């Protein structure tokens, strides 16, 4: 796994500190060319892993990468699914069952019948597989190294105790897509315990890790112990705690922890991207 992983929050209006800044980004990246320009830069300076939410615009990003195979040699796009707001908005308008019908329906006749059968039989594992397929359809032909489950789903399943889904998801992603299963979570230690118990080996786990203990359920000391002692591939996100910590201090702290394998960050400014990449390579 690469040490430096580029994220995409800035491209679709997420900023954990300022809604105004999020809105400005949203305006800027409304034009897909502005996203592709940033991505070209990221690729050219040697960041070769891009973690991306499965929202509609990603289709254009995948097309761009496929069109420029030589330039984007070794470039990996790792999808994080599902794009929760899409489903949340649909649940508000159509209800849970209506949403399942809508998305399991898809465009393919085959998945209509498969989805219909799965719905009727209440085969939830099958539904999960169909939803994964629906979300990953647009990534066909690009290099996928890992498929991540978004924290809103990981942590919901974790809280509800629906642990078997983690194993089903892992198996499906490995078998069907030849990719590594990954999990984004706000509750890393608890998830590690559960995955260990279910024999999900050496999983990719992406969680908030930062100097100020922000979004680290269980606390920084527990994280320290798990990072050092457990058999996981750990990706640190929110290392700057949305800009609350000075970048050098933030990354230096990550480097001081034993067991962080990679850092995920997002930015729209070339200078900031390059600086952060250099810091990660210096300290990790």
């Amino acid at each position: 796994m690469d040490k430096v992983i580029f994220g995409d929050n800035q491209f679709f209006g997420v900023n954990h500190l300022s809604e105004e800044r999020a809105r400005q980004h949203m305006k800027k990246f409304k034009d897909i060319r502005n996203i592709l320009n940033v991505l070209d830069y990221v690729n050219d300076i040697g960041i070769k892993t891009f973690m991306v939410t499965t929202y509609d615009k990603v289709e254009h990003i995948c097309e761009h990468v496929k069109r420029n195979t030589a330039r984007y040699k070794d470039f990996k796009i790792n999808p994080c699914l599902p794009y929760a707001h899409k489903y949340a908005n649909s649940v508000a308008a159509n209800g849970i069952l209506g949403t399942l019908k809508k998305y399991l329906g898809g465009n393919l006749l085959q998945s209509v019948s498969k989805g219909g059968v799965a719905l009727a039989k209440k085969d939830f594992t099958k539904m999960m597989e169909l939803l994964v397929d629906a979300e990953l359809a647009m990534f066909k032909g690009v290099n996928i190294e890992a498929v991540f489950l978004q924290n809103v789903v990981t942590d919901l399943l974790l809280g509800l105790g629906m642990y078997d889904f983690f194993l089903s998801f892992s198996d499906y992603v490995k078998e069907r897509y030849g990719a590594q299963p990954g999990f984004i979570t706000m509750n890393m230690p608890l998830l590690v315990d559960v995955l260990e118990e279910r024999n999900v080996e050496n999983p990719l786990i992406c969680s908030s890790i930062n100097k100020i203990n922000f979004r680290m359920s269980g606390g920084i000391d527990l994280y320290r112990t798990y990072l050092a002692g457990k058999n996981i591939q750990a990706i640190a996100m929110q290392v700057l705690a949305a800009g609350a910590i000075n970048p050098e201090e933030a990354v230096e702290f990550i480097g001081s922890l034993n067991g962080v394998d990679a850092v995920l960050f997002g930015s729209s400014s070339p200078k900031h991207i390059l600086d952060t990449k250099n810091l990660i390579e210096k300290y990790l």
Partner: protein
Amino acid sequence: MLNAGIIGIGKMGLSHCALLNAHPDIGNVAICDASRFQLAGLKKYTDFSCYTDYKKMIQEHELNLLFVATPSKFHCDMVLYALENNIHVFCEKPLSLSVQESKRMADLANEKGLVTQVGFHNRFIGTFQAVKRFIDQNLIGEVYHINGEAYGPVVIEEGAGTWRAVPEEGGGCLFDYVAHVINLMQYMVGSPEKVSGTILKKIYSKHVEDAAYSSFFYKNGITGQLSVNWSEETYRKMSTKVEVLGKKGKIVSDAQECQLYLKEDPQKEGFEKGWNSFWITDQTEPVWFNLRGEEYSAQIDYFIQKVKNNDLDNVNSFESSLETDKVIQILRADAEGRPCETDIMGESRESCSESALSNSFWMFLKKLIRSH
């Protein structure tokens, strides 16, 4: 260990379910829902006891606390039944669709000495808590005006067909976005005595309001303005903001950032003349389990601790929520040109379902008269 029950496993119910199940003070969790489809999934993959009849669930389990997260029109009967069985209740907002129902629930809870809470989670967001703290510390001096607003993309096209579009079922932004904003303004400066110039606007919905605008007048001379619109697709998700103006400064806050402007140096550590910024990252207390944001975890932990200590002093009690329901009712009255006194606590002897029924009957009658 406390035993918990949850009625209604839609979006909020599921989230409560996960948080409760992961909470160290919670033992067994029982769930109840009318949808056999959702229940089947949970039955198959979790250890929860599953029910379709809430009374049976309450009778069969020794519940210490109950979460009610069904559509609002069902709240009253369920909550009263739980309270009668001496169970502490957390209810999703709005507490009910009428002030009379809310009052009956609040009264019974008081009579029984039970802990109650309503899911107005904004009061557990660090930046909004900071606003409240700064007002209480008199940092901005005498408050003279408050603006409360919320925008987001809930109903952005015509023809959506869920309960959100049906007035009798608690549809409309008044019971949703507006309730949150009113409750937050209430947290900061109390309840208005009078409202005026209320506009309830249908944008895409046919039968319910998608936006609400109004002016508030408070007893102590404070004024306020409400601006809420849930058909605003320029926002990615619900964005809530308050602005409080005082004679010595002002506070502007959303869920991420709280900015405090001070006219003079307050001679207080951590504050200076001019703009002071505080972010959610430094205003947030760690939680035991994080699902959709710290505030959802924090409000549940707060409720559990209140139940454990039998502490009835709750920031989001039914009684506090009743105040919010009153404002919702006078906003509707004002918009429809009816008198909107704040003292609208007519005693009702009807049962909850009867009062809901008679509400629908009057609405039906009104429509009939209008159409003729």
